[in-house]
């Protein structure tokens, strides 16, 4: 079995495009929330975590961007940053196949919705063939591969809110089993009219004017966001042979599923707990010094995630600080797990864990050591990242730094 190392990261989100900068902003308690740029009386008073003045040309140069929709551009930009950070130059990519694994919950709902509405309104002959290629959920992964000439394995993973983290686990498995040697792995989700309306109508948003309060007794929902992030993963021998800087390791991954009925209650069977236990392996929770959860302020999901973490850590539950980025960055759906992982890697490096945004009155029933108010100093090398989707998909990743 090959060892999987992380040789670079690339991300773009409401708090910036550098993982150290995003980490600093989170530690300073900054958030990415702004009034919704999407017009509509339905959205009055609602805020979103959008990437302000997103300018793909700044990263990608003057090449024709028209074939790429917003999801495609987010992917191409995050991939560009990850390739640059990991030293995968164009020349190196000619000699060695690099692939891409994208986690996304929806692909581009803007592209799909507008394509369909145009055809329905004006007639099928007015639908754009160019846009059609982008209506497939895997389009952004394909566009990213074309843009960066990534000829290795190209795949797309959908597990709802867990998509980004699951994609990293899936990619690690491909490298560990020798099926790939170098992969960009992460997630992306765009903000769109369709998703924002869906999020509000599904009752997932916190009240207009309020903020998400993950793990807080008063939590009432999240704020919808967007973003993209990729880790550059590769087989450790390859990284060594090309003298790549190793910033961390993917140690293990676990995944499971709870039924719709099970997801309707805070307690009871919990596949995330099992996924964490599987990822921790025979060593158990010993040595895990921090947890990056996917809690976003959702009344039930936060509770299920807290229960899973507490039960899986057992006796060590009150010794391990737990945080989340979603109190500041909102619910970036398919991108979330990738952004969580990057912020955790940066936290291990900087020895500082950002606090949970919006958390003032921790729900004591959870019995966890949440990072509140200010960043927490940590001196650990191994951490857990977790993700839980509303429909029951759950996964956990163990990462480490030297």
């Amino acid at each position, binding site marked *: 079995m090959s060892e999987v190392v992380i040789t670079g990261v690339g991300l773009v989100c409401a708090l910036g495009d550098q993982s150290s900068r995003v980490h600093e902003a989170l530690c300073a308690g900054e958030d990415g929330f702004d009034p919704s740029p999407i017009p509509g009386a339905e959205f009055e008073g609602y805020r979103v975590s959008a990437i302000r003045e997103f300018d793909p040309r700044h990263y990608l140069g003057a090449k024709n961007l028209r074939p790429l929709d917003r999801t495609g551009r987010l992917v191409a930009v995050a991939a560009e940053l990850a390739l640059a950070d990991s030293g995968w130059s164009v020349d190196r990519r000619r000699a060695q196949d690099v692939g891409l694994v994208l986690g996304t919950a929806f692909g581009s709902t803007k592209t799909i919705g507008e394509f369909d509405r145009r055809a329905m309104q004006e007639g*099928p002959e007015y639908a754009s063939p160019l846009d059609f290629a982008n209506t497939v959920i895997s389009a952004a992964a394909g566009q990213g591969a074309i843009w960066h000439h*990534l000829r290795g394995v190209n795949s797309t993973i959908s*597990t709802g809110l867990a998509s980004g983290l699951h994609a990293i686990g899936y990619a690690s498995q491909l490298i560990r089993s020798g099926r790939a040697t170098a992969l960009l792995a992460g997630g992306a989700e765009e903000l769109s009219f369709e998703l924002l*309306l869906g999020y509000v109508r599904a009752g997932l948003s916190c009240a207009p004017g309020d903020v998400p309060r993950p793990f807080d007794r008063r939590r009432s929902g999240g704020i919808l966001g967007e973003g993209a992030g990729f880790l550059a993963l590769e087989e450790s021998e390859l990284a060594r042979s090309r003298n790549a800087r190793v910033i961390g390791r993917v140690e293990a991954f676990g995944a499971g599923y709870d039924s719709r009925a099970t997801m309707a209650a805070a307690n009871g069977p919990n596949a995330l707990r099992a996924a964490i236990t599987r990822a921790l392996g025979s060593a158990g929770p010993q040595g895990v010094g921090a947890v990056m959860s996917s809690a976003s302020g959702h009344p039930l999901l936060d509770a299920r995630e807290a229960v899973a973490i507490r039960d899986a850590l057992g006796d060590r539950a009150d010794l391990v600080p737990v945080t989340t980025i979603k109190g500041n960055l909102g619910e970036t759906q398919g991108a979330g797990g990738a952004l969580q992982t990057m912020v955790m890697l940066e936290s291990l490096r900087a020895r500082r864990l950002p606090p949970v945004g919006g958390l003032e009155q921790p729900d004591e029933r959870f019995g966890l050591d949440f990072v509140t108010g200010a960043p927490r100093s940590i001196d650990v090398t191994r951490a857990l990242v977790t993700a839980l989707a509303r429909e029951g998909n759950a996964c956990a990743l163990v990462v480490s730094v030297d």
Partner: protein
Amino acid sequence: MESLTRVVVTGVGVVTSIGVGREVFWRHLLEGQSGISPVGSFDTSRFQVHLGGEVKAFRPEESVKHLPPESMGRGSHLAIAAARLAIEDAGLKTDDIDPMRVGVSMGTTSGEPKWIEQFDDRELAGKRDDIGEEFLNRYPCHVLAANVASELGFRGVNLVIPTACAAGNYAVAHAFDTIRCGDADVMLAGGSDPFSRITYTGFARLGAIAPERCQPFDKHRRGMIPGEGAAVLVIEPLARARARGARVYAELAGYGLSCDASHMTAPQSDGPVRAMQAALKDAGLAPHQISYISAHGTGTPTNDRVETLAVKQVFGEAASSVPMSSIKSMLGHTMGAASAIEAVACALAVWDDHIPPTINLDEPDPECDLDCVPGKARRATVEAAMNNAYAFGGNNASMIFRKCSDSDT
């Protein structure tokens, strides 16, 4: 080095336009039946083409028993029906298995397009207020695998791999790896896609839909015909299958994935070549050991020509002696379900020593001059079958199925 776990197919479930369930499907496939008919699920009067491969007389409530059928779209209905058939076909007693050790890996192109189409209809009708929670909760494609697992009570690894027209192969490949690395004891893997007006519109605009017949490899072929369906395979370790006395259709011998990285919709030969080569290497087989190729074979002028070139490049002299057929000639292109249904066809070809035909192949294209099994099924010993699938974005996947004799353990 520790030897790798051998992984086999012990059950198949199919819901297609030519039949539901293994026996009917396989009989009709070998008879060369066509499932193509005028589209009934939406109005095609504004289109210049009107045919599709829809599943007729399908009753979701016969398969969706625990969850409310109306709480999900047709993609989940088809997937659940196929999963139930596969479990029954495998003789799997689900009470005897730890539900945490049973996973679901599904491929799709569109997931549940009904919910975004409904969103669009309401938006266009000025009824935005009628758009409710269902869009966010029922539309994301991962509900396909989630609904299968919720309905059947499986709690292991659960994911959807939406790699468009190659998705079924990707999903089966992931199940293969999941079993091999010990993350599950049993995997349900396959693909599902319901008939979608968005997909139909898109292929119509690309000028890719054939007006009358889908004729892969024919000189006068005029395109593909969109279809729908689902297939699920029960995948488990050979040792487990032997221990429970299960029938083994075929062994998963190996697979390969690659990416063209050159064009979103125009097929290239380089990527498919690399996927086939990787699959052969993974399976430890030489090209001449492949007895049957299930082609991607959409029936578009470019695909079939480029695919032929790719096979020739990989198989060399052996290319002309390997039968290669396209069952899309009968089913149309069922999108994310296609390579899962074709995986079932490969497993059954290996088990039953029959090769399904390419129908509507009247005059072979000189540029598609391989043995495309025109018109009639063929009886032949099928030691190994290769399933090829190619998708938008240049996603290529080749999977190899191998015969498993009774003495294999």
